[in-house]
């Protein structure tokens, strides 16, 4: 979870923020004045100043906020002057907007506020729909308004050109006043709340901001989005009464409190109408005392009444924003703030401390207990006496325990040790003395220890205040030390004792036992908050009462709307002692607390000593007989197998794996599949050392995996087996993978030269290239490459030969490879112990709602008998209902509800419908007379959590990334890494080196339009593809000028839109969007209907259209842009150019002897300096492959290959292609 901030204002009006990863409140020092209230989003924070005006603090990010303004210059031709600015009276303005209706001279553009600055001066746009125009940028037409072309024709009577200028928001990380709107806003403001960012994803960064004026009016800020953070104007919202306070959740919930104490709820908030339509009134929780405060989240409402009682509203969701009833909660608060994930913060009524509601989960939205945040403020020294002991100075609440408050100092000592629950073993000779770990505070005079034991902690705290006099001393109690002697070897007994301890504390008078989980609780919040809460029925915690109000921060307002934590987050907010820094960090991950270098050192030492022992004990006795003779080990299991003969179906088989090892310890194995064929017992076998890859194929009905050998790869027909359970499948996969790697002598992390690839399921595979892989003319055949899986889930991966590997997930999160291996289902021996982290990914599942028009009732879900399912997948062939559609595999879980998807290609109407004359046809986003059917797309998000050697690089979501390829012995130490954000911005990562592959920060590279693909070549040539399909070359990129200076437009191949580019050492290749016919003499149509794809990978691939592969001709050092695009091949989905100019692609429709595969790894053979385009394709693993990168393989092929090639120069017919594929029958991938 990314780091985010909790904001709060103290009673003096100072603004503080507390990072979810931090431990102390940071003072917002540059605040221009005192603030009354704050409301935060993840990207900015709004506040209400003491002058009652509104301030905005936009958090600096690597992406600048820039806004493009444009205007058109129009000219008409006349016979005298040629084209001139003299227009006809009926014409548009000489300077106008794109429609011509608005007069827009250059000087009419003003900066919206002092927070903006111009990035440069006006310039003419010389790019017209992806094509460069002539120098002046004019586009021509017959008349206004009409279609324009970039070429002047004989009948071109008018022309226009576009002027562009960028402005940039400069007031980042400072509080900027929102200019007031003098006409409409006579009132000073009194409350503010922002939210609503989940209503719609378009435009990016959209927010709803609601404010309340002193007169009780409510205003809504229009037009807030990423490139307009300040919004544009205030709109008054009509009201049924006078509002005192308002709260807006991240979704479509908005509640407000009226003067008289009633609550009102905004209804009709949709993506088209974020302001909503009307108010509904909700009665306040208790009729005699009205509400004074309300706060809403995604699906929760919390309120505070005038007597400071806290209330939780039941049954609130976006269909029923009013909810169903109030539940009284414990605690007395003055205000409450609901944040992301419905987490709750509040300010205590009496002590004015900030409380966090613990244990709020999606299943238990009301949480469990209040816990005070005791982080010190910036610059405030931690409590001197508190620092001596962990448990001191920490507010903590457990559950109910009926014990009186101890106020006597003497009894406290006893009580303290009893509560600390030191259990001394009855056998003193063995049990080590239970010395309290050096704890000076335990002897200190004791103050009152209120037993903070229940939810009613606040009131108890309050009542405690009244008794006794405050003491300067802070009490701390020995943390529970649990010692148990277990004499017989019996684990159950230990647990039993511990369990007994739970019950015994209160009932027994004798030695006190402690809850085993107490220690966990004392170690901090980091372990398991939920468990602590639920189990700590007898735990008691000491509560330090801090002395004096001057030490104790008094808070007035808190805002958690932008604070992304949840009940599983590890928070460091709850203890104030000085030494927590080291503690919390080390607890967070045990494996991280020891540096890898140290780990390596002691591990090597152990290993050496072990070897030494073996030498000493065994070297002289090698001739002795072994006590146990080595034999064959067999693992068997019942499986299902997708049988080889027709009709293909799953049949029950016996699956057996025999592993045998010779005396030298070398392992080998054979896989057997025993099946019945016509009542006859038969078997199929595969040698483990011939298996090239094991591919897990998990779907909602079967737990299958595919086993490939080189022969099976040629056939495009793997051995497919299905295990009964997912666990069993992973057991087999883990065992077989380890055996395969062992038989090939492969272990540890992938090398720097490794070739990485990704399947359409997001699984990551890696292959170690042999030097002969790129040999000419006899390279290692591609189908013999051995692939092994690496944990994690990615959509794409890019690397270079310095070992820098970056990946991008389906949710566009960027990940960097940590140098580990394993993760996912590879556990234990098959996985490295360090460098494995949790990885999550999110994607959407889409289904279609189809309707047909009939004259009686209009559009209904009653179709014709011949129609598709009324709820279906995109093709309409499969029924997909809202309730029946499951996540793609058991690994995915739903994280949202079904929602209409408006971002379908082709537009939609306001309800998301698309219309057509009939199924299946092309749909459009408006209804015409001829349309009889309509459909709309529903999307639901699902999330996957796995582990792998990947670490997240927040915060910018990416769609493409590329890193400089380098030679095997490169002296470069920092590597340029370029990326494209999901918005289309081009970014350059600084500080990427072999030691810090994650780099340090992003540098934004300006572009005139959004980009979608980028690649950097060996000499620093950067090529990119814009969203409109045109190519660009970045000039003057060098180590001194890592971002280059300007973009050169490169026209795309005629009538083609490019989608991806890859640059090797000198060669540049690009792939276009679809394979519109490029004439080719040998091209044949694929007739064989059966794809193996549906079996293996579902229908995912069927809708991807492969494109053509183009090679850039004429690229020279002096003319890096090259001259023209040369067609290489069609049916190509993706290309990866290596540092030796190797060409590897993902191709579609590769024909094998048994089947056809889509998404196949292919290698271009015969690539040489004199023939950079190569000669023909060699086919490797597939189908279902989505991505490959060979940019790490800088291994020069052996020289012999080149010599023999000169000597013999074999004709291409002696290609190394296996027979089954040399003449691919019907394949459309051709040479």
């Amino acid at each position, binding site marked *: 979870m990314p780091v985010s901030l909790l904001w709060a204002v103290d009673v003096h009006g100072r603004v503080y923020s507390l990072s979810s990863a931090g431990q102390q409140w940071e003072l917002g020092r540059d605040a221009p004045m005192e603030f009354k209230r704050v409301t935060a989003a993840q990207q900015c924070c709004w506040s209400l100043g003491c002058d009652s005006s509104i301030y905005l603090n936009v958090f600096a990010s690597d992406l600048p906020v820039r806004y493009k303004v444009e205007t058109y210059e129009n000219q008409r031709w006349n016979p005298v002057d040629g084209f001139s600015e003299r227009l006809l009276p009926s014409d548009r303005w000489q300077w106008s907007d794109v429609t011509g209706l608005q007069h827009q001279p250059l000087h009419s553009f003003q900066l919206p506020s002092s927070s903006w600055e111009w990035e440069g001066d006006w310039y003419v746009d010389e790019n017209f729909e992806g094509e460069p125009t002539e120098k002046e940028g004019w586009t021509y037409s017959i008349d206004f308004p009409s279609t324009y072309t970039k070429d002047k024709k004989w009948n071109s009577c008018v022309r226009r050109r576009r002027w562009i200028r960028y402005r940039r928001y400069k007031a980042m990380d400072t509080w900027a006043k929102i200019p007031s709107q003098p006409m409409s806003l006579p009132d000073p403001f009194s409350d503010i709340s922002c939210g609503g960012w989940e209503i719609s994803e378009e435009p990016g960064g959209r927010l709803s901001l609601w404010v309340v004026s002193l007169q009780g009016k409510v205003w809504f800020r229009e037009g807030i989005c990423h490139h307009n953070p300040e919004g544009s104007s205030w709109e008054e919202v009509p009201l049924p009464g006078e509002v005192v306070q308002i709260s807006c959740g991240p979704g479509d919930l908005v509640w407000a409190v009226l003067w008289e104490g009633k609550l009102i709820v905004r209804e009709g908030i949709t993506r088209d109408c974020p302001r909503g339509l009307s108010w509904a009134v909700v009665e306040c929780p208790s009729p005699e005392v009205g509400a004074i405060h309300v706060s809403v989240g995604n699906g929760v409402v919390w309120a505070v009444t005038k007597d400071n009682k806290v209330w939780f509203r039941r049954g609130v969701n976006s269909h029923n924003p009013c909810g169903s009833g109030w539940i009284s909660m414990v605690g007395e608060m003055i205000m409450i703030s609901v944040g992301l994930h419905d987490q709750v913060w509040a300010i205590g009524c009496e002590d004015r401390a900030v409380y966090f509601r613990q244990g709020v989960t999606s299943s238990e939205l009301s949480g469990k207990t209040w816990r005070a945040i005791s982080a010190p403020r910036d610059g405030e020294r931690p409590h001197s006496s508190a620092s001596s002991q962990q448990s001191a100075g920490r507010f903590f609440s457990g559950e109910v325990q009926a014990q009186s408050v101890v106020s006597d100092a003497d009894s406290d000592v006893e009580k303290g040790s009893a509560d600390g629950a030191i259990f001394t073993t009855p056998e003193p000779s063995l049990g080590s003395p239970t010395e309290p770990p050096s704890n000076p505070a335990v002897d200190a005079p004791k103050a009152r220890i209120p037993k903070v034991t229940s939810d009613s902690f606040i009131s108890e705290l309050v009542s405690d205040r009244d008794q006794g006099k405050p003491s300067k001393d802070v009490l701390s109690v020995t943390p529970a030390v649990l010692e148990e*002697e277990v004499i017989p070897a019996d684990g159950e007994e230990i647990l039993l004792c511990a369990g007994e301890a739970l019950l015994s504390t209160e009932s027994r008078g004798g030695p006190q036992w402690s809850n085993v989980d107490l220690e966990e609780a004392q*170690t901090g919040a980091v372990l398991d908050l939920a468990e602590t809460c639920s189990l700590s029925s007898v735990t008691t915690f000491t509560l330090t009462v801090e002395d004096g109000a001057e030490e104790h921060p008094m808070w007035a307002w808190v805002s958690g709307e932008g604070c992304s934590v949840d009940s599983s987050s590890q928070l460091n907010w709850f203890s104030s002692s000085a030494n927590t820094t080291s503690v919390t960090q080390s*607890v967070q991950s045990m494996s991280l607390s020891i540096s890898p270098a*140290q780990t390596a050192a002691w591990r*090597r030492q*152990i290993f050496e000593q072990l070897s030494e022992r073996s030498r000493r004990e065994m070297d002289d006795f090698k001739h002795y007989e072994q*006590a146990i003779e080595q034999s064959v080990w067999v693992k068997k299991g019942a499986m299902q197998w997708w049988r080889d003969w027709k009709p293909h179906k799953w049949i029950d088989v016996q699956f057996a794996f025999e592993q045998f090892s010779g005396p030298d310890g070398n392992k080998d194995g054979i896989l057997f599949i025993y099946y019945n064929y016509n009542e006859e017992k038969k078997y199929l076998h595969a040698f483990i050392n011939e298996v090239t890859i094991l591919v897990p194929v998990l779907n909602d009905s079967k737990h299958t995996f595919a086993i490939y050998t080189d022969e099976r790869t040629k056939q495009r027909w793997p051995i497919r087996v299905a295990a009964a359970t997912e666990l069993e499948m992973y057991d087999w996969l883990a065992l077989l993978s380890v055996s395969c790697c062992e038989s090939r002598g492969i272990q540890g992390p992938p090398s720097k030269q490794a070739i990485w690839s990704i399947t359409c399921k997001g699984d990551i595979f890696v292959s170690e290239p042999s030097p002969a892989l790129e040999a000419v003319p006899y390279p290692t055949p591609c189908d013999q490459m051995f692939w092994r899986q690496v944990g994690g889930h990615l959509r794409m991966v890019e690397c270079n030969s310095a070992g820098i590997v970056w990946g991008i997930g389906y949710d566009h999160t960027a990940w960097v490879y940590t140098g580990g291996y394993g993760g996912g289902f590879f556990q234990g021996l098959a996985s490295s112990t360090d460098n494995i982290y949790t990885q999550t990914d999110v994607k959407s599942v889409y289904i279609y709602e189809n309707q047909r028009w009939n004259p009686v009732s209009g559009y209904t879900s009653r179709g014709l008998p011949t129609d598709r399912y009324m709820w279906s997948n995109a093709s309409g062939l499969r029924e997909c209902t809202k309730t029946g559609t499951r996540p793609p595999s058991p690994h995915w879980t739903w994280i949202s509800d079904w929602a209409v998807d408006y971002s379908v290609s082709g537009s939609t109407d306001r309800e998301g419908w698309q219309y057509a004359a009939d199924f299946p046809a092309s749909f459009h986003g408006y209804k015409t007379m001829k349309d009889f059917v309509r459909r709309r797309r529903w999307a639901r998000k699902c999330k996957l959590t796995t582990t792998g050697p990947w670490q997240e690089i927040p915060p910018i979501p990416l769609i493409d990334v590329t890193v400089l390829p380098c030679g095997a012995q490169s002296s470069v130490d920092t590597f340029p890494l370029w990326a494209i954000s999901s918005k289309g911005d081009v970014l350059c990562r600084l500080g990427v080196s072999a030691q810090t592959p994650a780099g340090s920060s992003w540098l934004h590279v300006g572009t005139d339009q959004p980009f979608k693909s980028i690649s950097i070549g060996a000499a620093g040539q950067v090529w990119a593809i814009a969203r409109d399909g045109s190519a660009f070359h970045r000039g003057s990129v060098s180590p001194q000028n890592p971002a280059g200076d300007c973009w050169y437009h490169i026209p795309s191949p005629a009538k083609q839109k490019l989608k991806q580019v890859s640059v090797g050492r000198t060669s540049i290749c690009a792939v276009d969007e679809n394979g519109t016919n490029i004439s080719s003499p040998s091209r044949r149509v694929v007739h064989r209907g059966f794809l193996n794809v549906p079996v293996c990978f579902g229908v995912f691939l069927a809708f991807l259209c492969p494109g053509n592969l183009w090679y850039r001709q004429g690229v020279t050092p002096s003319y890096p842009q090259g001259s023209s695009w040369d067609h290489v091949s069609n049916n190509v989905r993706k290309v990866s150019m290596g540092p030796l100019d190797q060409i590897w692609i993902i191709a579609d429709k590769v024909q094998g002897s048994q089947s056809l595969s889509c998404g196949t790894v292919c290698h271009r053979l015969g690539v040489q300096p004199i023939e950079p385009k190569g000669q023909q394709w060699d086919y490797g693993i597939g189908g279902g492959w989505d991505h490959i990168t060979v940019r790490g393989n800088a291994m020069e092929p052996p020289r012999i290959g080149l010599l023999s090639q000169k000597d013999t120069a074999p004709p291409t017919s002696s290609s190394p292609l296996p027979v089954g594929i040399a003449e691919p029958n019907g394949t459309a991938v051709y040479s």
Partner: protein
Amino acid sequence: MADDKDVLRDVWFGRIPTCFTLNPDEVTEREAEPYYLLLPRVSYLPLVTDKVKKHFLKVMRTEDVEEMWFEHEGTPLKWHYPIGVLFDFHASNTVLPWSITVHFKNFPDVDLLHCPTNSMVEAHFMSSIKEADALKHKSQVVNDMQKKDHKQLWMGLQNDKFDQFWAMNRKLMEYPTEEGGFRYIPFRIYQTTNDRPFIQRLFRPVSTEGNPHTLFDLLKEMCPDALTKDGCLQHLLCLPWTSFMSLTLNLCFSSSPPPKVESASLLG
């Protein structure tokens, strides 16, 4: 870089050269030759002495044969201790090969448990595994395993099959790195100087301050006498390596975490 796997392998494949001689008091038909074997450290005596039994039975009459037991320099060897522990405990300072005397009568009921069949060993082994998992994961892992998984674990040990054993044992060793690891370190400390069989107490992998515990911490807590005043580091390193290893061995054996966590700051 040496990997965890290499360490585990070396621990597993640790062998002790042993010379079995028949007790001279046994009634034999002719003189019995000593028998030489490489015993795996990670195993139990009854599992590896089939050949020994067969060898000596050749020279004995059936009526003279009772339950076989072993003794080293007068001490009966407890079959329910791992072989590596027995060796380090009793014989680490003697000359190799380890000399073991084989008896077929006068079974010392006071010192040894009877072991009629290997299923006794299996029961003992599985109960150690369960106990260790109870300490580490509240028995969740071992309870989630199927009967055949338990069998595989046992067969792996019995047949000295590293992969077979570790394919299952890895499950017992897994723990999420992000949630602070597991609950308690399962361990036993055997001491020659003590009457008690071994020390076994609850010990968390992480200290209350959040630092991972090392072997040093464990020893300091459990048997401070074993450590000299001038710091444990030198002392432990001066200890015969084998003593440390029998500890590690046993740690591995009762499926504790890989020894690295304990020995981190000890050796590093």
